[in-house]
């Protein structure tokens, strides 16, 4: 049978065709050695934190709460509570990775999205297939968001398992001082993971935009990560606090409000609005750039 003999061919509906390309894109992202390496590093961080806390406290629950007041200033949020309840390792690990490690991995994937295909030469073949520039960009963004979620869940699940293995689990105390049971705590952990994943939506769009600017995957990754570092430095400069509310990381730590009773939604919503704004702004910029770009690579 030669390809010319297939006469029963019928074009699939457009939505189905786009889902087919999305599936192909997800397969490409998640069956890649680099993705495993990035997720592996993220999975190791909760193990590292848990191990250090375990060694520090000698596995004695009271040691943790005893030194709790002192440790508050140094470590990430929730650090002091880990030895009381392993579930707090999930929150601590997310709080520790969100400022840098998580967005770093997202920057690698988002920055490489278009520029990586361009430098490999595969972009021209996708476009003459013809994948369609808008469709390709949307699929690339969708698969980057899927990576954001996978990366966040990797940290959360690794924290959950490590916490359960190294420390006692059970009912826990919220920031507001009330007690919630373990199943409610798990539910909150899932919500927090989702909130953290959504915090990366704006930065992912920024990375995608940078990716349309160059034909070098390495340059796009470096540029995206460079922007992340710059923004994270700017947030620490008090003289710039007029600018801070517009930086994509401004509300990142709002996920901690999900550990209050009742939950304080205000900052969480503010974060979602900011991320949505970034996604729209840099999504449009990426489209404007990519739709009319000469593909010479």
């Amino acid at each position: 049978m030669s390809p010319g003999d297939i006469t029963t061919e019928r074009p699939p509906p457009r939505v189905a065709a786009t889902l087919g390309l999305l599936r192909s894109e997800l397969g490409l992202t998640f069956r890649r050695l680099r993705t495993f390496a990035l997720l592996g590093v993220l999975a190791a961080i909760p193990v590292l934190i848990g191990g250090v806390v375990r060694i520090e406290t000698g596995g004695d629950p009271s040691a943790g709460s005893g030194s709790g007041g002192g440790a508050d200033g140094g470590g990430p949020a929730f650090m002091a509570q880990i030895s009381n309840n392993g579930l707090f390792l999930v929150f601590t690990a997310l709080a520790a990775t969100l400022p840098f490690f998580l967005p770093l991995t997202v920057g690698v994937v988002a920055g490489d999205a278009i520029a990586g295909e361009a430098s490999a030469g595969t972009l021209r073949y996708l476009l003459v297939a013809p994948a369609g520039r808008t469709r390709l960009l949307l699929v690339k963004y969708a698969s980057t968001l899927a990576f954001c979620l996978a990366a966040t869940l990797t940290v959360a699940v690794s924290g959950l398992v490590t916490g359960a293995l190294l420390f006692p689990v059970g009912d826990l105390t919220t920031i507001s001082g009330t007690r919630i049971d373990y199943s409610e705590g798990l539910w909150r952990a899932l919500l927090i993971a989702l909130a953290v994943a959504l915090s990366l939506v704006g930065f992912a769009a920024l990375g995608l935009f940078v990716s349309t600017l160059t034909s070098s995957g390495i340059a796009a990754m470096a540029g995206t990560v460079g922007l992340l570092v710059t923004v994270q430095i700017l947030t620490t400069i008090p003289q710039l606090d007029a600018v801070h509310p517009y930086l994509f990381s401004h509300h990142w730590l709002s996920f901690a409000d999900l550990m209050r009773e009742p939950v304080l939604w205000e900052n969480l919503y503010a974060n979602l609005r900011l991320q949505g704004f970034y996604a729209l702004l840099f999504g449009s910029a990426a489209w404007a750039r990519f739709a009319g770009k000469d593909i010479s690579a």
Partner: protein
Amino acid sequence: MADAFAAVETRGLTKRFRGGQLAVDHLDLTVPAGTVFGFLGPNGSGKTTTIRMLMGLIEPTSGTAQVLGRRMPDAARTVLPQVGALIEGPAPYAFRSGRDNLLRYDAADPTADPRTRAARVDAALERVGLGAAAGKKAKAYSLGMKQRLGLAAALLRPRRLLVLDEPTNGLDPQGMREIRALIRELAQDGRTVFLSSHLLDEIEQVCTHAAVMARGRLVVQGPVAELAARAQDRIAVTTPDAGDAARILKEHGVTGLTVTEDRVTGEPPPGDRDPAELNAALVHAGVRVRAFGLERGTLEDAFVALTGEGFDVAG
């Protein structure tokens, strides 16, 4: 499909890159449907830029490009599924198998039926002789195998037009022969093949029609036989008395003489003189002639005559 139909037609197609470099300059190209069309020119003459404009990858600065009767790049979505393309060498995903590569490129085509995808991928791999290596990662492929994989991607669907940019570039002679044989086979199914190359003999062996580019401009286009006929025939004399032969030929108006050990060639004198008279003149002067004849002009001679330069000069 009528012969008059043009598979590719450009009018005044021009591309000036940022920085001012004029890559393609008012190109009027017509590729008749059903031909094997050679697109010939030295490296850097604007062939690939033209192909990229035809495929909607880069926007022309001015002028128009029609592919299969529709304007590019506007009609990319309807035209490109009917076009198989190999552009500036193959570019597989190195860490995926040959089959996975084709599955991905086929998934990128929104008009490709996913239910027949696996069968079409396997058929395309068989067609280019990669059936046995389908499961190997593309990074383990030789350059020839990568070229074949690129051709297989171009054959995933029934195509009306194949655009093949330097498909034998970087291959050894054996690989070149194999790819050329495959191209000839593909052309027999009645589809149009647009083949760019910087190798004259490749175009002469494979193509029915050709166009010649130099420094962004179209020098000439037409059937290969007609182009080659433009080249002047040369008189060739084999003789042990080469020096004398050259002197006598020159006296009879033969120009552009080249003399090697026992061979003299040159352009016949202008006018319709019978070359046999030259032979008679040689023999009369006592030159011992072993062989006397006319050598048919090649495309290369035509090219040199048209552009006034050798073919290996990069624009």
